[in-house]
């Protein structure tokens, strides 16, 4: 299996794109204090951690109340933390490659592998370079997925979906939606051209731009998750590029015609990690919470949350056969083999990529 590595940088990562807007709003708002009564755990997480099904067993087992603050985008999380007082927050969930941003600010507590079921987690996740900063672990991978393609298999040839060439396949002209995140979209194009995302340089951008613009005639819309899901469900499009399990898995039980996959040329992974705040006054409880989330039962519930589905990090996660089928559990080994994580680019490349994306939208 490939060793998953990551470049560091100050660019913007998965989920950050929509989140910065909310972050700006949050920054402009008056500071908010989050109550922290005895017997409470305050968690700053993504929406998939808000399910009662996930939290209730922990609350009952420990006799505490878990207060959930859901956010979208690393920028938003940073803004919320800046407005909070030390000790307000106990647990953080963030894009694993973004852990460095928080760790370098001294926000996160170093974690000891011995306290967590690291051995049960899928190896490519735990071996990823971004898991530790300076040899210290600050986050444990808890859930992951891919940027690839989601589609309606009643309307398209599933075999066509397994190749990146589908992005330019004239057969699907006007039948394609693109999940609106420039970074992985262009990384997917780079992969189709044989360029590893980590190796994208300024010299590669003209060729990537050309391929991106060439894709536009096939594209009917570019939108956020809700928009592309809506278009797929309404039948306005048959394919969602730059989407995958996080786009359609939660719809698949009721709409079996929907499906997703990654390209044979290579997949692009996203990984979310869970951490403990350094200033938490309930580190032991927070640590228990991490173990609850990382437990086989917790992982099964997290993987199939109401907000979005994705693969659990724990290989022992409790999932039904149907759920495993939807998440393509049996194909994960092959997916790992040809996937790399979507990592942060250098700021100048990132800015140039956004310019190209804007041109693409306008073309």
């Amino acid at each position, binding site marked *: 299996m490939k060793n998953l590595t990551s470049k560091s940088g100050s660019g913007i990562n998965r989920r950050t794109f929509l989140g910065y807007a909310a972050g700006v709003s949050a920054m402009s708002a008056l500071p908010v204090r989050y109550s922290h009564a005895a017997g409470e755990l305050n968690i700053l997480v993504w929406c998939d951690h808000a399910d009662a099904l996930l939290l209730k067993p922990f609350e009952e087992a420990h006799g505490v109340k878990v207060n959930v603050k859901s956010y979208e985008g690393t920028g938003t999380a940073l803004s919320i933390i800046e407005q909070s007082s030390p000790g307000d927050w106990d647990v953080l969930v963030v894009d694993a490659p973004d852990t460095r941003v928080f760790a370098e600010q001294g926000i996160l507590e170093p974690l000891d592998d011995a306290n967590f079921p690291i051995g049960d987690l899928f190896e490519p996740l735990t071996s990823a370079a971004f898991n530790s900063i300076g040899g210290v672990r600050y986050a444990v991978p808890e859930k992951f997925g891919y940027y690839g393609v989601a589609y309606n298999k009643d309307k398209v040839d599933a075999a066509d979906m397994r190749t990146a060439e589908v992005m330019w396949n004239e057969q699907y002209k006007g039948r394609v939606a693109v999940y609106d995140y420039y970074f992985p979209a262009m990384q997917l194009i780079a992969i189709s051209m044989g360029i590893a995302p980590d190796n994208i340089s300024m010299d590669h951008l003209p060729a990537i731009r050309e391929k991106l613009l060439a894709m536009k005639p096939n594209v009917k*819309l570019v939108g956020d998750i809700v928009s592309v899901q*809506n*278009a797929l469900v309404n039948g306005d499009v048959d394919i969602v590029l730059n989407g995958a399990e996080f786009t359609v898995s939660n719809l698949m039980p009721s709409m079996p015609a929907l499906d997703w996959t990654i390209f044979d040329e290579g997949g692009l992974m996203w990984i979310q990690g869970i951490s403990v705040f350094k200033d938490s006054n309930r580190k032991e409880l927070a640590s228990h919470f991490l173990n609850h989330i990382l437990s086989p039962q917790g992982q099964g519930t997290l993987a199939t949350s109401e907000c979005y589905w994705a693969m659990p990090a724990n290989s022992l996660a409790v999932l039904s056969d149907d759920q495993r089928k939807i998440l393509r559990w049996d194909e994960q080994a092959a997916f790992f083999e040809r996937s790399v994580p979507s990592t942060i680019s250098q700021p100048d490349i990132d800015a140039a990529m956004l310019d190209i994306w804007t041109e693409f939208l306008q073309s």
Partner: protein
Amino acid sequence: MSDLKGRNKKLKYFEFTRWATQPALIFTLIFFVTPLAIMVVISFWQRVYGKLVASWSGANYIKFFGTDYLLESLTNSIEVTLATTAISILLAYPLAYILAYRISPKWQKVILIFAVLPFWTAYVVRSYSWLLVISENGIINFVLTHLGIIDQPLQMAYTRGATILGFVHFFTMLLTLTIYANLVQIKPSYWKAAEDLGASKLQVFLRITLPLSIPGVAVGAFITFVIAIGDYITPQILGGSTEVLVPQAIMLQVSRAANFPMASVMSITLMLVIVVVYAITAKHLKMNRV
């Protein structure tokens, strides 16, 4: 003596109004003037290697006005907003006219409630609702296909037309209200005088009703222009990002690159467009009713 009392009264009134306006002035100073000044300053800054660098460079302005696809966002915004305003006026005026002069006061109230209904619905919900109507498998295509009028579904969603449709739905009602409010203020004695002088109904409309209702049209049109040109949600959902308007370009810069200098340039440009439109309509916006 009475002069003195009167002057004291005036002084007290002046003192009261002076103090009464202070909170609003301070609020405006803190939350509008100051951020605006900061935005102007930041527009000259640069984002270099992920960091904001303070400078007095016009590079962001040069890039915005010198890059085709960025400048196009401005022309797109102006075109969409002008089309929205024009269509909304054309639809709203007859509606307001009928409402003001052809409907009994009892029914006017009922219809006015229907007119404000769109304002009760959340913006996002309203936009997604339109998708259900105009999408490929939406109501319109369903009806037209089943009536045998079309073979292939019409492509309405995720187009500029869809964005304008979403805007017009909302702003027609807004304009109806402003025009209606203006029309009902016109004194019937003006028409009688004109008719007594031999004016036809068309002449009465063209030379009395229409000119006197222009302030209502101008107010509604200005509000429509200002709100529509700054709207992000409708073009995002109904337009499907198949073209970029200025608010979307601003969001791209802010939410994805944290490039506040470039976003500031775009925001200031948008604001200048609104100032120009205000200057054009100011005469009518300030016009006092006779």
